[in-house]
């Protein structure tokens, strides 16, 4: 039986899980923004990683020759999206129920009015979201349940405005967290079959559809290939799904890391510092890495590693987390943007407005003042992003500067404006150095943990029940 190794990184903003095989290859990734309860967060991230691993195994099963074919690649991408929609829909059902309960519990005289509007909003956004998942690849945009729903829900509530605004926003705030923190175990087999049925419907509908020119040419070219071959793909996949779904993903060992690591129900020797894990993960992906910058939710770490990926020294922000991921979250709220929109908006800037405040809360007030004075939003955001990177540069300098290859990890590495400034400032300060940024940058800590698990920790697993799905039911 194949052995797998699990790394779980419990961060302050998100929890990540990575599953690797015996060759250190990533087979599954999972991420959640649940943070009220670390145990649930770890379980959700792990479940996600296991689903992802099953998809990887499925791809391996259909063989390399098949996997590189356009129709397979396209179909698998769609399948993952729709599968995510399936998970999403269950959570959405919980949210709808809870929203209704919350509004019913209000003591407002006119609460029936709110209820009617709530139902109307739900009826409106539910098909919107379904459509975006199935036809617009929403699933590949790295957004969490909360972001996706709140974006659309808020828009509708804002449109209503007036007396509706406050109660309906309150209802959302009260309902979203319990739903996020709910541990839902899905039946992989059922959900995949269900997703394939949805896709069947989608592709059937597309057969006769004309190109409307709203997308790039390559999209239609790929779509045409899929349209003509999806039945073959579907039947090939269906041959293997049951086997993959029933397969036991045998997690031989695991390591927990991140801020919440002490709260994990793991034995002490299965808990590793996130500094070591981030460095080890980054070094595994980019073996020439000597300096790692990790910007996470509440801390920024500048880490120096040797040729083995071992940490030789590190420096972290102390006492203040302005300039970390949560700072960006706060700023996004101030601007009424989602986290994903921050970077692109900042990159529209024509100049960088100087932000003087070194404190998150003061920066918020300063932003309001600047907006009031007519400063352009992108310029302010550019200034904020630059300030974040300047802080990180100071930590890098304190830790000994950039040596050889430089790798940038952590959730904030997903922000394109931060990336732009990191590249510029590192080059300005240390000359031309190889800079590595990986799409999996947010998973580096969990990857490092999984690699530690594979290498030197031999222990019994605390619980194995949640890693195996109850497919027999």
């Amino acid at each position, binding site marked *: 039986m194949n052995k797998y190794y699990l790394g779980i990184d419990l961060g302050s903003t998100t929890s990540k899980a990575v599953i690797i095989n015996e060759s250190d290859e990533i087979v599954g990734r999972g991420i959640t923004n649940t943070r009220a309860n670390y145990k649930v967060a770890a379980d959700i991230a792990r479940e996600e990683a296991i689903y992802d691993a099953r998809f990887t195994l499925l791809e391996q099963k259909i063989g390399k020759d098949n996997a590189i074919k356009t129709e397979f690649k396209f179909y698998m991408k769609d399948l993952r999206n729709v599968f995510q929609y399936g998970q999403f829909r269950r959570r959405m059902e919980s949210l709808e129920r809870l929203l209704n309960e919350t509004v019913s519990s209000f003591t407002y005289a006119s609460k029936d009015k709110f209820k009617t509007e709530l139902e109307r909003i739900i009826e409106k956004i539910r098909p919107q979201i379904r459509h975006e998942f199935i036809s617009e690849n929403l699933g590949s945009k790295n957004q969490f349940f909360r972001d996706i729903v709140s974006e659309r829900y808020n828009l509708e509530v804002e449109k209503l405005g007036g007396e509706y605004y406050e109660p309906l926003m309150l209802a959302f705030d009260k309902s979203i967290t319990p739903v996020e923190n709910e541990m839902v175990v899905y039946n992989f087999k059922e959900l995949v079959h269900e997703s394939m049925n949805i896709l069947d419907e989608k592709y059937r509908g597309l057969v006769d559809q004309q190109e409307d020119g709203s997308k790039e040419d390559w999209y239609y070219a790929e779509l045409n290939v899929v349209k003509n071959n999806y039945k073959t793909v579907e039947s090939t996949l269906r041959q293997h799904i049951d086997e993959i779904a029933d397969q036991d993903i045998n997690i031989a060992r695991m390591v927990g890391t991140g801020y919440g690591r002490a709260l994990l129900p793991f034995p002490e020797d299965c808990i590793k*510092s996130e500094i070591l894990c981030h460095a080890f993960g980054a070094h595994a992906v980019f073996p020439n890495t000597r300096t790692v910058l990790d910007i996470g939710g509440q801390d920024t770490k500048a880490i120096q590693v040797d040729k083995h990926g071992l940490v030789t*020294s590190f420096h972290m922000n102390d006492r203040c987390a302005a300039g970390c991921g949560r700072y960006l979250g706060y700023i996004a709220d101030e601007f009424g943007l989602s986290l994903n929109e921050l970077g692109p908006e900042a990159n529209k800037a024509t100049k960088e407005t100087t932000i003087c405040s070194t404190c998150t809360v003061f920066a918020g007030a300063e932003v309001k003042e600047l907006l009031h004075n007519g400063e352009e939003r992108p310029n302010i955001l550019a200034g904020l992003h630059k300030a974040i990177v300047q802080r990180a540069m100071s930590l890098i300098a304190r830790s000994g500067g950039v040596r050889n290859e430089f790798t940038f990890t952590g959730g904030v590495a997903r922000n394109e404006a931060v990336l732009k400034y990191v590249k510029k400032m590192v080059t300005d300060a240390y000359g031309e150095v190889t800079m590595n940024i990986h799409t999996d940058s947010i998973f580096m800590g969990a990857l490092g943990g999984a690699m530690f698990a594979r290498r*030197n920790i031999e222990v019994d697993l605390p619980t194995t029940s949640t890693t195996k799905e109850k497919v027999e039911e």
Partner: protein
Amino acid sequence: MSQEAIKERSMILQKEMVEGLFNDLANAKELGKKVCYTFVPGNLSELIRTFDLLPVYPEINALQSAMRKKSAGYIKEAEKNAHSEDVCTYVKCDVGMLMKGNIGPTGQKIPEPDILLLSYTGCFTFMKWFETLKREYPNAKVIMIHTPYQENAKMTPQMIEYMVKQFKEEVIPQMEAVSGIKYDENKLKKILEYSKEAEDWITKIFDTTKHRPSPIDAYFAGVYYIGPINIGFRGTPEAVEYYKELYNEIQERIKLGLGPITPEGEMKEEKYRLVVEGPPNWTNFREFWKIFYDMGAVIVASSYTKVGGVYDLGWRHDPSRPLETLSEYCMNCYTNLNIPQRISLLTKCIEDYQADGYITNSIKSCNSFSAGQLAMMREIEDKLEVPVGFIESDLVDPRYFSYSNIKNRLESYFQMLAQRKTMEKTEA
């Protein structure tokens, strides 16, 4: 943490000495003794003793207030009286204590100073501290001796001459005036004999960390060991007796192959040997220490135990040249060494005591110590390829000790050392 700490016999001896001093201080008037406030770096214990003065060390009072969890209140009191947030917390703690009635660590009142003796000028804050005290105690005599910094890594004959001149023209005449006692050089020479002897013992004591396991912790326990030599007992037969006793205790531990004593008993397994730069945090001293001993980390040398005097390289008080030797002593304290001197001293410690790592505890409110710490750490890391760690806390302000931050960093650091050890074993 509330359990009673385990104590060695020498600790009891020390306690008696300290209690004796505070008793004398409480009854100074009755005893007809004059009181001299002064600081630890470059402290002129022998000269103070020559004039039968009783010493008070505001820094020590501050750190003891912190260990007794009183510093937060004292600092608040000082801040209420317009001392800024950025002022050295030793100063604020001391000023706060003064405002609250100047009750010392033994619960007895500390008398007002007759002399404010500033014998180390490397810390600018010291000067400002005494300026503040001078306003509170207008009758006290301020005696200041300017100590040249070892900018070129040596004490030249001119520097010594410059200091001796200050002793002869400023310090001694003023001490004579306040104490009413004539300067007696033979008395000073006798005192210096005892100083030299105590210094020999303390050097031997800190050298025992060469053993594996190290029988002592040269930082957390080290701060107790340096007590008598730094707070007025240097130059007394009691101090010599204390250090002899301590040395014997340590020899016994070595014979039995025992590790250092911690507040929770003997350290069972020595996993890591470290050298630490910077003062400890006093508000959470035991918690801070516990992070180390729980991980099996023992400190084999620290720069902090050298603030009162650097004896590692063979320097001792020389009774044959009393004023010259006092000058050298003032100039030779750790914080008066230039940065390359400190680096070479710490390098020697890492090598001599076979340390696995080097940690800097940076202090928010101490510029004297913090200046140059990062550069020193970088150079040591490059030169010795030893894993380095950096943590930040404060002397006596509990608001700047973040347990979870420090624990997080130290845990990472110890895991880094463990990983390196595993790798070295594999390579071997």
